[in-house]
């Protein structure tokens, strides 16, 4: 396992056991071989990847030291803007859109010579739980390609779980990092709202969206989080990481740490998933932590609040795709209004159109008070409920998803059930809290089960610490058969 970890690869590069170009080429070759099965990447960037790798090799040849993320092959979800590299949100409406600026997170990583292998698949505009709402077709689960990788950051999870990238950045609006990480048996963290700059992240729901790392292990998540959690003046809602780098406290003892379990989080969860989480609680007890149970009745509001508010914001955020300035434009039309109408009708997929309609509806005069305003109020209720909970525990333990990865096509055939699977992930987006998903078992078919550790605002260090201790004690992670083997 160590050979696919950031620190291990960094040592190999420094010790010249492998050159950065060899390492990069190994990933590019694996992509060539396996992407057909996984459909993780929608755009590959081999030339610029090898160019960066060559620059890193030159530095190493000159005897210069390199940073931890320098020369490490990685990927970005295709809603993170990359100057000169197509960024599509996996939507027909942006299929030919090439940004002219870099998202802040990519700027930070590029400055550290991160090797970008390509852009990865996602549900269109990050709306979905299976990655199947992608105009390029869904990404597949590296543990079994008959199952979905999850969504919306399915491509990143598939690439990282399938060893076609060491790590990746996804975005999480209602679970889009944690859910595919859980499905693919890897680690995904949604940071506190404001910890990572959103500048350059193509918005789905602005007050929920947050960029975070998807990695094979907790330590890598901590390393990447430290690298991207900087205050950014380009994002008014940015605050940056509060406190010292999380890597420093990652391996601290957790004796006496209080982990809370809200009973409502376990309602309706599949038995094997609940058992896996309960076993994880046992592992924590054995590490000297304390498990406390509590009630969180406000949780029942989470799904409607999420779908009302996220869709409202989305309906406004997606108004700009009109075919006038960039992206797809309908081929024939009678006038400008007809052009906009046809462009949007044929450029957006079904799920996106559904959410735009829903969002437009809840903001309309006459319905605003009954839906949008009420949902905002309940958002406040959830925020206080969670902050109350953190008076009696340090972190909250919960399943990430009530089940394991669906089979291909299932989400499309049962959209309401698919919405319901977001129940465990949306609360932290509503409340702005940080949450991390780590693998905690496998179902009878061998599909990974994930559990979630939720922290108080800006307490990423605490949840990463708890996650690392569990990972180290339970040793659940199993690499998939795909991708690079060093």
């Amino acid at each position, binding site marked *: 396992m160590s050979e696919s970890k950031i620190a291990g690869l960094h040592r190999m590069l420094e010790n010249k056991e492998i050159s950065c170009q060899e390492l990069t080429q190994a990933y590019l070759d694996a992509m060539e071989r396996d992407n057909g099965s996984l459909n993780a990447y929608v755009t590959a960037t081999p030339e610029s990847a090898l160019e960066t790798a060559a620059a890193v090799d030159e530095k190493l040849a000159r005897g210069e030291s390199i940073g931890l993320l320098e020369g490490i092959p990685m990927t970005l979800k295709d809603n993170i803007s990359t100057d000169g590299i197509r960024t599509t949100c996996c939507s027909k409406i942006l299929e030919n859109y090439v940004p002219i600026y870099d998202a802040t997170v990519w700027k930070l990583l590029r400055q550290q010579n991160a090797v970008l292998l390509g852009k990865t698949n996602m549900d269109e505009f990050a709306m979905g739980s299976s990655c199947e709402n992608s105009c390029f077709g869904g990404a597949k689960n590296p543990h079994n390609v008959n199952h979905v990788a999850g969504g919306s950051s399915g491509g990143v999870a598939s690439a990282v779980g399938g060893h076609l990238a060491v790590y990746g950045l996804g975005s999480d609006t209602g679970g889009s990092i944690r859910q595919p990480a859980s499905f693919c048996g890897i680690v995904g963290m949604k940071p506190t709202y404001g910890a990572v700059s959103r500048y350059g992240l193509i918005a789905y729901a602005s007050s929920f969206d947050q960029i975070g790392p998807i990695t094979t292990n907790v330590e890598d998540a901590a390393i990447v989080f430290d690298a991207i959690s900087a205050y950014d003046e380009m994002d008014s809602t940015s605050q940056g990481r509060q406190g010292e780098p999380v890597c420093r406290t990652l391996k601290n003892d957790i004796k006496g740490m209080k982990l809370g379990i809200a009973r409502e989080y376990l309602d309706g969860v599949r038995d094997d998933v609940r058992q896996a989480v309960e076993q994880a609680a046992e592992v924590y007890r054995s590490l000297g932590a304390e498990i406390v149970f509590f009630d969180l009745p406000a949780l029942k509001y989470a799904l409607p609040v999420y779908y009302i508010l996220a869709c409202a914001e989305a309906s406004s955020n997606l108004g*700009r795709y009109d075919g006038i300035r960039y992206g797809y434009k309908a081929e024939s039309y009678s006038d400008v209004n007809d052009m906009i109408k046809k462009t949007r009708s044929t450029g957006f997929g079904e799920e996106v159109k559904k959410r735009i309609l829903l969002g437009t509806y809840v903001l309309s005069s006459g319905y605003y008070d009954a839906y949008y305003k009420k949902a905002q109020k309940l958002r406040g209720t959830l925020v206080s409920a969670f902050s109350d909970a953190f008076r009696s525990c340090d972190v909250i333990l919960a399943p990430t998803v009530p089940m394991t990865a669906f089979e291909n096509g299932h989400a499309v055939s049962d959209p309401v059930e698919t919405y319901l699977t977001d129940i465990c992930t949306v609360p932290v987006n509503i409340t702005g809290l940080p949450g991390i998903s780590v693998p905690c078992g496998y179902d009878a078919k061998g599909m990974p089960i994930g559990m979630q550790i939720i922290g108080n605002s800006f307490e990423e260090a605490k949840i990463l610490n708890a996650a690392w201790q569990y990972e180290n004690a339970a040793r659940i992670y199993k690499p998939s058969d795909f991708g690079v083997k060093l």
Partner: protein
Amino acid sequence: MKYELVAGFETHVELATNTKIFCSCTTQFGGEPNTHCCPICIGLPGTLPKLNKRVVEYAIKAGLATNCEIAEISEMDRKNYCYPDLPKAYQISQFDRPLCNHGYIELSNGRKIRILRIHIEEDAGKLVHSRGSTLVDYNRGGVPLIEIVSEPDIRSIEEAREYVEKLQLIMRYIGVSDCKMQEGSMRCDVNISVRPVGSEKLGTRTEIKNMNSINFIAKAMEYEFNRQVDLIESGEKVVQETLRYDDVTNTTSGMRGKEDANDYRYFRDPDLVTINVPRSRVEEIAAELPELPAQKLKRYVEELELPEKDAQLLVKYRKVAEFFEKAAEGTKTPKTAANFIIGQIFRYVENEAEKEAMDIKVTAESLNELIKLIDNGKIRMNLAKSTLDKMLETGKKPSELISESDMAGLDENALAELCQKAVEANPNAVADYKNGKEKAIKAIVGFVMKNSRGKADAMAAEAKIKELIG
């Protein structure tokens, strides 16, 4: 029946900040299309707005200068509508928590026109129609605006005119906008209704959109007032609608449908944070405000003892007032400077734009120098007047135009000598005077003035002549 006009204004004023409201692009007017743009102001996917602090500061100034309360907490909202000149398909504006509330502007008749609110927002781009196709120029997109919303307190076209002029003047004084209506940096929407005189109930209103000249506003209001009165008189009803004024035909017509039917689906912009303006900051900004036109007018009349009419002419343009104050500084009576400006200099700055710019060859300092020569008895008024004309033409200073000998004046002997000459040269006038025609003496004094090239003191000359022919 007699009808009364009831009108309220929504005035958009472009703020004169160097950069746009949410990015660092220039706000300069004109420029090649789409050159004053960046990913943020053309709303590229993933970009985020960042509020320009200067915009908040300017809007607070505007609020304070119009007697508004400044909200300690205000918010930015999205106004959603789809139009090609609006690249995000929403305008970032303020809806339920504007920055300034409850102010007023006092008119010369003593009536107060209440201001409901002033909020900040971004301007849209511009559609350019050419040869059957339409292009979009986003240079203006993201230029900061304030929208000043009045209550329906205006009762006549004269009041409307004065309200707009006062607003324009105040904004220019405090330096937040040049308010050039012809360039669109000040635009008015007018809400109009009519009601029988004495009635308290408001009639159905119409809204005339986007007018960019005070004269058009007056004409449009007059037309619309008459149209509504005619409708009511003939038993029809005024329909609430949005109108466009056509300055060629001098009529208003409905913009029809879409704009009226818009549901803007306002909601708080999640990309921006709450605007907090501490009391102390408001006080700081208030302390920085210059003397406002109303205060200046009062001071000119009460302290400088100018006739109100003159004072009004001077305060009407900030640069004129500044020029006046410098020119009058340290002189015996401020009235002298006022007279020179109104009587002579205004002939060189005839229209509004010229007065606004006050771009003339004479500096306030040299006018001040000229007035001091009069005050010190070095030159007479008529020489000063002719010198000022030369100054206005050439840009030279008084010292370059008036010689030592000009300033020396005439001594008593020279004056007596010249008066003697004048008596001898005008026997008819002398005879007339002796026969009781008092006015005939003016001709003899005129001779003295002419031959002394204005240096003689007319009063002294008259006395001397009377003595000679007495």
